[in-house]
């Protein structure tokens, strides 16, 4: 995208990648694709390609990290060196450490941590290709991986962002909009329980715009939630169909 382009949205309200303001990027979800992980999921959210693997509950290693009264959830968000145009150092960056924490905290409310004290659940998120909104896509995939591993959950966690681009509030920002736009509001959400587990904002929004952005992101979440459920069920439907 040309840096000098000052219009991210044309007169007809069409965005740089041809979407309308309230349109999501195409999402493809797949569950159970890694055989060595207890649970796994793969998401393609626009040009984002992300793998998530979940393990556990199992004994915590190192042991001193175990909590006597609850299960510990650990997350690692990692971007592959080839996930961005310029090579990214494979060592965890400040941003990755922060996102690991953010993903962990947005998934924790969905788990029954008190049921399996002294154990740990590990979630590994590997970004193969990034194009804006990876934290949201990562949360969506990580929740699916945990559900696939058989760890009981209150609800699937699904995430989607909204933001402001050229004075318009739009949903699901991609890389260029994220970098050149005015604001970005990622929201993680448990649709059945109507509970928000992550709400961040980067940029400046008027209160009215903020409210609109949150609502749009939640609408986006609900759409992805349906795909999430579908993806999880598909894994078990396949066997059923073969039989019929």
């Amino acid at each position: 995208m040309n840096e000098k382009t000052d219009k991210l949205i044309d007169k007809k309200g069409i965005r740089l990648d041809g979407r309308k303001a309230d349109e999501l990027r195409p999402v493809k979800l797949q569950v159970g694709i890694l055989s060595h992980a207890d649970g796994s999921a793969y998401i393609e959210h626009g040009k984002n390609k992300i793998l998530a693997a979940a393990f556990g509950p199992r004994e915590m290693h190192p042991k001193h990290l175990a909590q006597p009264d609850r299960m510990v959830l650990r997350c690692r968000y990692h971007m592959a060196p080839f996930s961005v145009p310029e090579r990214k150092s494979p060592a965890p960056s400040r941003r990755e450490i922060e996102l690991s924490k953010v993903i962990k905290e947005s998934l924790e409310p969905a788990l029954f941590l008190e049921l399996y004290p002294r154990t740990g659940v590990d979630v590994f998120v590997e970004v193969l290709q990034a194009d804006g909104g990876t934290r949201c896509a990562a949360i969506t995939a990580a929740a699916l991986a945990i559900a696939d591993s058989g760890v009981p959950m209150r609800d699937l966690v699904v995430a989607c962002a909204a933001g402001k681009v050229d004075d318009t509030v739009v949903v699901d920002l991609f890389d260029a909009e994220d970098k050149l736009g005015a604001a970005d509001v990622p929201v993680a959400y448990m649709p059945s329980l109507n509970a928000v587990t992550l709400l961040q904002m980067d940029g400046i929004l008027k209160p009215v715009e903020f409210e609109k952005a949150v609502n749009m992101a939640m609408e986006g979440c609900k759409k992805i939630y349906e795909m999430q459920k579908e993806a999880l069920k598909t894994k078990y439907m396949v066997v059923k169909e073969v039989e019929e």
Partner: protein
Amino acid sequence: MEKETGDFMPTFFEKKQLVTPGELLAEGDYLPGENSYIENGKIYASRIGLVDSDNKKVNVVALRAFYVPKMGDIIIGTVVEVGFNGWTVNIEAPYTALLRASDVLSRPFKPQNDELSAVLNAGDLIVAKIASYDRAHDPQLTVGEPGLGKITRGQILKVIPTKIPRIIGRKGSMISMIKQETNCQIILGLNGVILVTGKTAEEEEIAIGAIRKIEEESHTSGLTDRITQLLKETKPVKVEETQQ
């Protein structure tokens, strides 16, 4: 999908419907059973599985789960470590189990007289019973009953623990059929580890094949017939081979 059964189900699911974590199952005068939980008077699923209800209890038969120790369960475990006065055993659960030396030796145990690794060594497989377990302490095992102890021959396979009841079948119909058709001894560990001991490796393979098929297709109907067919089909083939 399902025919009208007599029971009254003012709920949000059909019998044997596939549900995902967070799916609303029932509202009002109901109780959460297996793999479901209640929040604000509403019952939700906490694992992917098939819903069912008996009376006022809403159950989800999980398609993915892990083994949680229960007192009195017969399990199959692997010795992972020989300690000073006992063994550490991997029982395919979130916690590792302990087997005390005094339990195995059935006489007063003196560390200076007895070499524990001569009795059971790391890597040995044992059939054991959970003697005690609560969430604050690791489970303790016992082998002081007939049929329990070190495994010396046979083949081991692992299945998802929730499939064990399906492998047993109604009043043990499925497992006794497999035992009869293949002349194999089968011990089902409730932790999802199964020991198959037959006179020949071929017989063991047939039994394992049948169990694998049950595991894969446990949530489909008419399984017993297909397993009977599978066992009947594989048997004649084997006879022909031996004749040639």
